[in-house]
């Protein structure tokens, strides 16, 4: 025998568990004084190449850097990143298409955060699922390579909307694939107004210095609020360029 169904109010965020854990991690990172930056992109946009160069350079500059790297299978990326001689740990997610706060927490179990200046977290190559999961990072970089086309932000608005900075990679190929930088920047602005874009090529070195300067400024600035400062000037410059 059954009674009538009763309506029961719940009002609970489905990702509450992850969000609470991420908030706790963010608190731990701040307390330890470690800047945490995550990277998201499609597979093959150049996360690992950029990260390898970043770790090598920052170590040479005397910064204590480390990386966590997520992948469905293989430890290839961790091996590539380990060439920088920075501490690196692979998170093999199995069939799971994204990292979550719990995986990050477990991976950090035997690391001392106080010994780090910057921790990078390379997410699984995927522009859909990672957007739902806060990892406790202070800054999320979304990468798009010039070979993917200018409309990537329009196709994946959610992930671009959760990111703080857009890095356009493989700029050395821009002419070969007729990449329209103006259109790409406009698309980024439509999805995430005010978001800074950084264009670079790990291979040719183009744009790498301003990218490193940007990261170094973050290390000393308490909050990423400075991010938007240069955007207005940059956008005005693009508009002028288009009008000519």
């Amino acid at each position, binding site marked *: *025998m*059954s*009674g009538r169904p*009763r309506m*029961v109010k719940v009002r609970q965020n489905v990702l509450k568990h992850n969000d609470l854990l991420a908030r706790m991690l963010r608190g731990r990172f701040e307390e330890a004084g470690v800047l945490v930056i995550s990277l998201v992109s499609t597979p093959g946009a150049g996360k690992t190449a950029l990260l390898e160069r970043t770790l090598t350079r920052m170590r040479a500059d005397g910064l204590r850097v480390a990386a966590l790297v997520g992948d469905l299978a293989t430890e290839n990326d961790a091996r590539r990143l380990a060439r920088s001689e920075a501490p690196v740990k692979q998170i093999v997610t199995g069939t799971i298409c994204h990292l979550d706060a719990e995986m990050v927490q477990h991976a950090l179990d035997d690391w001392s955060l106080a010994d780090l200046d910057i921790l990078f977290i390379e997410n699984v190559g995927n522009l859909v*699922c990672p957007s739902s999961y806060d990892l406790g990072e202070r800054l999320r970089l979304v990468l798009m390579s010039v070979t993917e086309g200018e409309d990537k932000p329009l196709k994946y*608005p959610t992930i671009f909307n959760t990111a703080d900075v857009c890095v356009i990679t493989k700029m050395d190929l821009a002419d070969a694939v007729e990449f329209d930088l103006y259109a790409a920047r406009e698309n980024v602005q439509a999805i*995430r107004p*005010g978001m800074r874009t950084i264009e670079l090529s790990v291979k040719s070195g183009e744009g790498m210095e301003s990218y490193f300067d940007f990261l170094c400024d973050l290390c000393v600035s308490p909050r990423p609020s400075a991010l938007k400062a240069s955007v207005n000037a940059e956008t005005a410059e693009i508009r002028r360029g288009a009008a000519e």
Partner: protein
Amino acid sequence: MHELSIALSMIEMANEEVVRRGGGRVTALHLKLGPLSGVVREALEFSYEIACQDTALEGSRLIIEDVPVMVHCARCRQDTVVESIQSLRCVRCGELSSEVVQGRDLEVVALEIEEVEELVT
């Protein structure tokens, strides 16, 4: 596709509520879903049905309320629903806005629970 793990979390939440209320069967789950949550409605509906099997939610309906994306416009001092998530502009003045006030929602708002009474013979 992470909708299956999202569905499992929803069911876990509902189960906790059922246990807290001393048992019963869930006949419907009401969810608020925003386009910026990163969850695809169709994939969630598909996953939900599978994930409900052999639980107190088996056969229950998933009732989704679509929540539109709303931005706050600093110029108009108003919250407006955007025309497209590909363009986060105030519909009044056309200004781009980075302040999303609604649309990331992924929230279980209510459950319909049928209390199962013991059979008296």
